[in-house]
């Protein structure tokens, strides 16, 4: 069995020196995905080579790289299943621009991945699909809604995955599976051909096993001039909440702040509660608009209804006011936190990665506070539209990741990724996060 490199950039190196051919690389990735998909239950549909360009004839910087994405993107001749079904044949349908750009760079799409139904959920819970397992620990929850993306990348089934993030749906799964999760600036990557949840908050994001891998994918997804150059010596400000954090999370953040000599620290971001409420108003209203017909007919699933129903009763002026206000709030946020600083560091999850039984509605051990905690530091960033990145910074006593979140000004993704790359190298070496957190994982095949 071929031993594939741990990271996308490692694979590129192996291809460039002829250690393996493009054909061998793709075949090995397909074989590995076939072996592992029954183990982690994160694949909705495998893409066969038939009717697709031959993988070994692709050109481009990412030729030979296999990816698999959340089943929310239109793909060639296939309409996505959205966590509701297994997708449908749609002759003539074009791939979403985000997918098309990756294909133009040479990637091969291996599979469509599971997700919370219609992207409504902070975990991978989905009564229509088998429960997606966390490759690091089968008892641990897999965050959502891009749950299949996280499980596939963390189990090394794919070198990277596109997801969508409306209130943390890329960052939460990344934090539960020891991955890098990047929510891009609102509007940076086209959402055309991507099923909406709340269009004002939706962003395409990506999950990878290393910062360098994410840089490679982002370069393929956007034009060179869309992004600002990386800050060479980024200045950090830390938001270290005085209350509400588990001791292990608080300690890990504090150590990081010390290590990076963060001078400016705040215990409160005064507008956090306000911004979170405004993001919820927009989320509920727009989700209700997206699912209005099914909501009124009463045919919507309980998971979607849990998010959308409030939108049906929210007074319209609240929604309009929340949206009108956000340019002002975004300017104020930069002025308070990112003027003179390049990055704001804050918690990703306020608690250790929970067991799935604690955050699965209907389970006897279900604890609603643990479920809500998953996105307590997420939704306000979508309201502001800023880029945000989550990466592991430490390991808790169970060996699970403790992650931090980093926010930058719009279009400053390169600053986030460059900083994440340094941190990754210092703390975890150059073999990606997964083999640090689960050194035996690659042996499952």
């Amino acid at each position, binding site marked *: 069995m071929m031993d594939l490199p741990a990271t996308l950039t490692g694979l590129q190196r192996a291809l460039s020196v002829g250690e393996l051919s493009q054909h061998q690389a793709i075949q090995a990735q397909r074989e590995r995905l076939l072996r592992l998909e029954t183990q982690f239950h994160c694949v909705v549909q495998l893409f066969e080579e038939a009717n697709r360009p031959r993988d070994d004839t692709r050109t481009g910087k990412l030729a030979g790289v296999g990816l698999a994405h959340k089943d929310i993107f239109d793909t060639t001749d296939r309409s996505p299943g959205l966590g509701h079904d297994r997708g449908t044949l749609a002759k003539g349908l074009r791939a979403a621009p985000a997918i098309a750009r990756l294909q133009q760079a040479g990637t091969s799409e291996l599979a469509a991945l599971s997700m919370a139904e219609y992207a409504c959920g902070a975990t991978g819970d989905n009564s229509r699909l088998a429960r997606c397992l966390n490759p690091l620990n089968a008892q641990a929850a897999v965050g959502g809604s891009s749950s299949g993306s996280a499980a596939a990348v963390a189990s090394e089934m794919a070198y990277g995955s596109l997801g969508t993030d409306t209130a943390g749906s890329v960052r939460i799964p990344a934090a539960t599976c020891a991955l890098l999760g990047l929510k891009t600036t609102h*509007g940076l990557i086209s959402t055309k051909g991507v099923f909406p949840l709340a269009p*004002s908050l939706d962003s395409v994001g990506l999950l990878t096993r290393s910062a360098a891998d994410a840089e490679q994918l982002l370069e393929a997804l956007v034009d060179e001039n869309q992004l600002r150059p990386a800050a060479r010596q980024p200045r950090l400000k830390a938001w270290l909440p005085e209350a509400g954090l588990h001791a292990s999370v608080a300690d890990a953040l504090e150590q990081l702040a010390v290590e990076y000599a963060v001078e400016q620290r705040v215990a409160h971001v005064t507008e956090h509660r306000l911004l979170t409420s405004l993001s919820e108003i927009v989320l509920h209203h727009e989700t209700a608009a997206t699912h209005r017909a099914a909501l009124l007919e*009463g045919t919507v699933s309980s998971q979607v209804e849990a998010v959308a129903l409030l939108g049906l009763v929210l007074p319209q002026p609240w929604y309009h006011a929340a949206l009108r206000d956000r340019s002002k709030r975004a300017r104020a946020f930069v002025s308070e936190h990112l003027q003179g600083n390049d990055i704001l560091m804050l918690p990703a999850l306020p608690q250790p990665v929970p067991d799935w039984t604690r955050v699965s509605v209907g389970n006897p051990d279900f604890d609603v506070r643990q479920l809500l905690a998953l996105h307590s530091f997420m939704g306000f960033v979508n309201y502001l539209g800023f880029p945000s990145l989550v990466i592991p910074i430490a390991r808790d006593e169970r060996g699970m990741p403790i992650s931090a979140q980093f926010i930058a000004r719009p279009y400053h993704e390169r600053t986030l990724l460059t900083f994440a790359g340094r941190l990754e190298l210092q703390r975890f070496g150059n073999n990606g996060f997964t083999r640090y957190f689960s050194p035996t994982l690659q042996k499952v095949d």
Partner: protein
Amino acid sequence: MQIYTPAPTPSTDALNAAPLEWTGVVRSGLAQRGNPATEPEILRLAKQLQRLHPAAIEAMSSSPSDRVTDSGLADDSVEFNQTLRSLAA
């Protein structure tokens, strides 16, 4: 082209109502739906409205003009994207 019809707007009194009255706002909103709501469902939604109310009041104290699309979604995307670009510098 669809004509956009705003949903009934609760009166200022209703928006500032005591917790119990939030259930009225919920009942009126859910009246559009075919199936009846349960009391726990109404109470849950009323509590959520009550929680979000202060933020809504703060936002409503700001600027006027609404730009509303056929879908009933407000369209702030042009202005917001300009704001994001200006904040990049």
